[in-house]
């Protein structure tokens, strides 16, 4: 008997460790715990990137119809990640700046940084340049829900706000109040 990788229906390749029964239990030995948790974080971020998922909630480990069930459960060996362990994993991710609790002030739901806000800032800037939308006013909705799908489609408002704040530091963005919410103007900038 050996543990092997597995391709999910959505085309994600689960690592072989995902087919090992003890992977789904929080480990009491500190060294082992750190290793296993690290593997979970890598897996979660890779899956989030694959499915373009931005949010992970502790509840996702409790229901069977969540976007995350391919990863948080393994029906083939009848194991699931327990909510208590998922919440420890989320806390670890937040402490390593790989996620942030969103909304702040609670610990049940987190925004995942499979791209950091800095990286999102560059993606946003690159997108504005390639679509010729520098110097014009864009609402947040035009960015998160563009007519032509972009890497920024469905980006959560909070994450977008962080990316814009990063660009503001290098004078490449300016927040503008518009009629139905918030807007932003992006500039070429002089680089860093």
């Amino acid at each position: 008997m050996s543990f092997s990788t597995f391709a999910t229906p959505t085309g994600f390749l689960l690592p072989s460790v995902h087919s090992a029964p003890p992977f789904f239990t929080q480990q009491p030995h500190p060294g082992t715990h750190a290793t296993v948790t690290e593997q979970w974080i890598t897996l979660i971020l890779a899956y989030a990137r694959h499915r373009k998922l931005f949010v992970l909630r502790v509840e996702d480990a409790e229901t069977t119809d969540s976007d995350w069930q391919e990863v948080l459960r393994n029906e083939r060996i009848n194991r699931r990640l327990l909510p208590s362990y998922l919440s420890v994993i989320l806390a670890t991710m937040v402490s390593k700046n790989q996620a942030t609790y969103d909304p702040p002030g609670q610990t049940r739901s987190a925004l995942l940084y499979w791209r950091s806000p800095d990286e999102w800032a560059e993606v946003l800037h690159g997108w504005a340049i390639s679509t010729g939308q520098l110097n014009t006013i864009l609402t947040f909705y035009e960015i998160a829900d563009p007519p032509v799908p972009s890497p920024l489609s469905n980006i959560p408002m909070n994450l977008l706000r962080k990316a814009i704040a990063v660009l503001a530091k290098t004078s490449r963005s300016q927040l503008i109040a518009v009629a139905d919410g918030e807007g932003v103007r992006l500039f070429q900038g002089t680089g860093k």
Partner: protein
Amino acid sequence: MHRRGVGLAAFDRQEQSKRSFAELSTQLSKSQVDHLHAQLNQFRTALAHFAATHRDSIRKDPSFRHAFQQMCSSIGVDPLAGPRKGGWWAEMLGLGDWQYELGVQIVDVCVSTRERNGGLIEMEELLRLVSKLRGVSGGEITEDDIVRSIKTLQPLGVGYQVVSVADGRKMVRSVVKELDEDQAVVLAIAQQEGGRIVEDILVGRKRWTRGRARAALENMLLRDGLCWVDEQDEECGKAYWVTSAMKWDV
């Protein structure tokens, strides 16, 4: 027989013959030493010739290498003697480098898998991973080569050691950690079971008391980090998985 002469002349004669004998003996032993030198030179040349001709086979063919190493040890030559002692020999073969290189690869595999196996790796698995690391061009290696390379690591004092567990299987330990007898038993059974081990198996098969089984498993889990716990085991609720006995298709 002649009577020994008397008087001063006799002393002279005796001295004379003593000197002659001494000269003769020096001559004799000198010729013997010369002869030995010649022989040694011849042997050296032959060995060097052999090494040069078969260098590739020695490095590539494991059974040839084994035979060669046996030959060396039976005539008291250490093919691995470093540059300081018997340097020409190691240089001639390039075997010293070869063995050290293998040592480095063993360390590489042991260190990179330590997180998941707690510093204890099965010989077969180590062999598989090292071979993979070397690629096809590296030629085949055997358990014998691994054991030999681990010996060359000993002066480093990092505690690499080959340990035998209950059923004769070998494992390589890369952390300084004592395995007690109970743990060796647990390891052996876990290997048969693909890694999974529970108290019930130890109680049933080994007639251990439940307390002893639990202590052995908890020690491995909590103190040594040699296994992972699974709290969703269908059969027993709690199972232990010995990571070094789990097989991964990486």
